């Protein structure tokens, strides 16, 4: 029995706690920080409409319908200047999180603020907030924002590895359920869904006549979206197919951002996908950053010590 279990346990421990690449965490941090910065900054003009008693939904009206497990600092910070102050802290926190300044201190208050804004105005939340919530929480648990990554044998490395795996699984889950749910829909099944999404007044930003006259293109975009979402959770783990799936997933979100104007959502999703960035790409990015002279060994992409542990090293 022990002989039977040992290889499984060893493989389990290695997969979770000794991931060969954990630098993707820093890419996710920077990307998510940028998405949140844009998202919070964009709320400047509708801040009081969404989050104060003088706005669309008063606190009393919200509490009459709210889920008791949902909490928010903005249940207590209710005056316009208090909301403005919380918003300003969120903007500054997002910027600091993006550039990796005092991340260990900044990430938790930023999570509290993000959750608070989400729960004060659940009626105005959308996909951007959903993906930001899960990524931010997982990043809070990771040792990120340091000039050098943890040494491969350290407990910190094990923690970073576990969080890397959790973010990877989360992204796979997002795509799997999003793709599987689409198979239930007649518009996805018949290849028209992208057309109907693009004609929704909320997302209609481009002239549609060129697309309407090319039904094959609508079909290709619809089926391509489903194919990417269903292939991703299964093939992203394979080193051979990972680059293709990663490019396809990022391409899908660039398409959503450009064609439908969901820019902040697209940036946040792309940030999540970066957790799968192959080591070679990160090395090239690190080289590029260094050659630009913008850093001096503090990219957060530098390996700690001798790099990830392998059994083949002399």
């Amino acid at each position, binding site marked *: 029995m022990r002989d039977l279990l040992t290889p499984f346990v*060893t493989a389990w*421990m290695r997969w*979770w*706690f000794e991931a060969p690449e954990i630098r993707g965490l820093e890419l996710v941090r920077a990307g998510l920080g940028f998405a949140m910065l844009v998202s919070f*900054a964009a*709320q400047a003009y*509708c801040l009081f*409409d969404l989050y104060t008693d*003088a*706005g*669309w*939904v008063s606190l009393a*009206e919200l509490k009459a*319908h709210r889920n008791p*497990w949902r909490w928010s600092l903005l249940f207590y910070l209710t005056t*316009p200047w208090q909301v403005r102050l919380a918003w300003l802290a969120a903007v500054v926190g997002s910027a600091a999180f993006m550039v990796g300044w005092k991340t260990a201190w900044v990430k938790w208050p930023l999570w509290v603020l993000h959750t608070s804004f*989400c729960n004060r105005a659940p009626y*105005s939340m*959308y996909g*951007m907030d959903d993906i930001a*919530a*899960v990524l931010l*929480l997982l990043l809070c648990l990771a040792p990120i924002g340091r000039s050098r990554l*943890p040494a*491969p*044998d350290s*407990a*910190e490395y094990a923690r970073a590895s576990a969080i890397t795996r*959790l973010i990877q699984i*989360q992204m796979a*889950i*997002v795509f799997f*359920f*999003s793709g599987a749910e*689409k*198979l*239930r829909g007649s*518009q996805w099944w018949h290849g*028209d*869904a992208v057309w*109907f999404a693009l*004609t*929704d*007044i*909320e997302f*209609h*930003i481009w002239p*549609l006549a060129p697309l*309407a*006259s090319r*039904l094959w293109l609508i079909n290709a975009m619809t089926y391509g979206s489903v194919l990417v979402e269903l292939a991703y959770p299964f093939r992203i783990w394979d080193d051979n197919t990972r680059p293709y799936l990663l490019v396809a997933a990022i391409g899908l979100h660039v398409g959503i951002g450009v064609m439908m*104007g*969901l820019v902040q*959502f697209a940036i946040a999703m792309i940030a999540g996908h970066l957790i799968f960035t192959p080591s070679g790409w990160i090395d090239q990015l690190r080289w590029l950053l260094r050659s630009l002279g913008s850093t001096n060994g503090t990219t957060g992409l530098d390996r*700690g010590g*001798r790099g990830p542990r392998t*059994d*083949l*090293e*002399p």
Partner: protein
Amino acid sequence: MRPPTTPLDKGRGESGISQAPSATHLVMNSTLGRIVGSVAVSVAVLGMVVSAAPKSAIKYVSYPVFAPTLQILNVDTSWGYFSPNPTRGFVVRYDVIDASGGRHSFRLTESLSRWGDIGYTRVTGYYTELGESRPRYAQGAARHLCNRHHDLDPRQIELMVGTQPKVNPVEFLRGKDLYEFKFERWDPIACETSSPRS
């Protein structure tokens, strides 16, 4: 070649970075630490799956166990974007009825600029929610609009929610309008006070 390592090897400190093992180091690199870590990641993955899973007997049993934690952590999401089918567009319009019975018409969704209003999606998200969730937010919306149009001396607000028709590509090429909304006019809501907006 050095001997193969196992995940349970303790603080070898070869990198020279963490020579003095910390308490966290000892815990996380111990067998017990990794067992605890394994349980934690297993529960986390289960939570992710249960949150996103469709309705089933398994979900019926497991969701109540995870739901409070997922909701406290703000990670209770189903991820079904644009599925099973993309939703139909919504627009919200309203009339302000003043003290003399005069009507002043306004548009909410349609007054926004797609690229000019950078919080567009968030605001239209509320308008859609308002349209779909009547009467949950209607009273608050009317109160807000009464304050917004204080200068008109408003007495009532009448909300209208328009649902966008589904127009397929062939119909579109034949000239059918994407924006022939079918409106539902809600009962007027009286303005409680005419105090200026704070």
